[in-house]
C-alpha cells in the first residue's frame, strides 16, 4: 500500500549551523569601510620665486587655530559656530565697485570696500599650531568647505535649479552615464569658476 501524505521532510537542522559559520567568517574578515571624507589638494612645492604675487590684504581671510582649539578669525576671537557665516560673508562680499573689471554681479554680500573684491580673488588662509587637535582642524575645514558649498549651492539653484553638491556627487559617481556626465561637467565647472576654492594653508607653527 502506498504511503499517504507528503514525502518525508529533509532534515535541515544543520543548515542554520552552516549559515552561522559563514556569517561568523564574514564578521571577522571584513570591515565596514568608511569611504567618505573631505577632499583637499595640497599645494605643490614650488621653487621660491623672486616676485611672489601681490595679494591685497583685504582679499585674505585669515583663520588661526591655536593649541587649545581657539579660533582667531580676522584678528578677532571667534566661536567656531560663527566661522561658516563669517566665511560666507567674506567670500560673498563683492566689494569691487560696479563698472570696474572685478565687479561681482552675482554677489549678494554687503559690498563693503574693506572686504574681498570678488569671490575669485578671495583667499582663505588657514594656519594652525602643531599642538592643535586633529578633530578641531577637521571641524574648521568642514566649516570652510561648508561656506563654499553654501554659496555654490545658491548659484547652482539660481542657474540650474539644483544643488551644486548634488550635481558634483552625480558627476563623480562612476555609475552616471557619460552623456549625463558631459552635461554636468560644464555646469559644475561654471559654478566652480564663480566660487573657486582658494584655501591656502600656511606651514604649521611650533610656537604658540
Amino acid at each position, binding site marked *: 500500500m502506498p504511503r499517504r501524505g507528503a514525502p518525508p521532510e529533509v532534515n535541515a537542522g544543520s543548515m542554520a549551523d552552516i549559515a552561522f559559520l559563514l556569517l561568523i567568517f564574514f564578521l571577522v574578515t571584513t570591515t565596514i569601510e568608511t569611504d567618505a571624507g573631505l577632499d583637499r589638494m595640497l599645494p605643490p612645492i614650488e621653487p621660491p620665486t623672486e616676485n611672489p604675487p601681490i595679494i591685497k590684504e583685504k582679499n585674505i581671510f585669515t583663520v588661526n587655530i591655536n593649541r587649545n582649539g581657539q579660533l582667531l578669525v580676522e584678528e578677532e576671537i571667534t566661536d567656531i559656530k560663527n566661522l561658516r557665516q563669517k566665511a560666507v560673508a567674506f567670500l560673498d562680499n563683492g566689494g569691487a565697485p560696479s563698472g570696474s573689471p572685478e565687479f561681482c554681479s552675482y554677489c549678494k554680500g554687503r559690498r563693503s570696500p574693506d572686504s574681498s573684491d570678488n569671490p575669485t580673488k578671495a583667499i582663505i588662509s588657514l594656519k594652525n599650531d602643531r599642538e592643535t587637535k586633529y*578633530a578641531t582642524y577637521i571641524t574648521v575645514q*568642514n566649516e570652510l568647505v561648508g561656506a563654499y*558649498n553654501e554659496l555654490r549651492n545658491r548659484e547652482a539653484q539660481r542657474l540650474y535649479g539644483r544643488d551644486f553638491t548634488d550635481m558634483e556627487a552625480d558627476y563623480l559617481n562612476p555609475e552616471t552615464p557619460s552623456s549625463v556626465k558631459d552635461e554636468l561637467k560644464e555646469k559644475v565647472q561654471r559654478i566652480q569658476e564663480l566660487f573657486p576654492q582658494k584655501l591656502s594653508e600656511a606651514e604649521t607653527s611650533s610656537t604658540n
Partner: protein
Amino acid sequence: MSKFAKKKDAGLPAVNTASLPDIVFMLLFFFMTVTVMKDNTLKVENTLPNASETKKLEKKDRIIYIYVGKPTSQYTAKFGDEARIQLNDKFSSPSDVGNYVLEERAKKSQELQNVLTIALKVDKSANMGLISDIKQELRKVNALKVNYTTYEGDAFTNLQ
C-alpha cells in the same frame, strides 16, 4: 478502532526551526554586501572625526591609505601612547611616508598612477604636528590629492 481515539501524547512538539537558516542567511547577505575584506589589521586607534560636507571616495583601487593614531593597548608597552603612523601593518615614522607612497604608486597600473588619492585615516585625538609632517612628505613626492576620511555627522561633535 474508534475514529476519534486520542493520539498518543508524545510530549511537547519540537519547535519549528526551519526559518532559522533563512534569518541567518539574511544577516549573512547583509554583511556580505555592506562590508569589504580587511586588507590590513589596524594597530592604531582609529576613531575618525565627524564632518558634514563630505565627498564619497571613488574606486578603491585608486586609494592609498595612511592610518594615524595612538597604538592600541597591546602595543602601548612597546611603542608608547603618542600618535603613530601605520603604513601597511607596521609603525612608521613620517620620513617613511614618501617612500611608501612611491612604492604603492609603482604597484598600480600606469593609467591609475596619476589619479591616486591619499586617504588619511587619522584618529580624532592626534595632533596636527604629525599631520603636517605627513603633508610635507606627500608634497615632496607630489602626491597632492588627499582625503581626510571622516564619518558623516555633525562636525561640532568633534569638539567635545
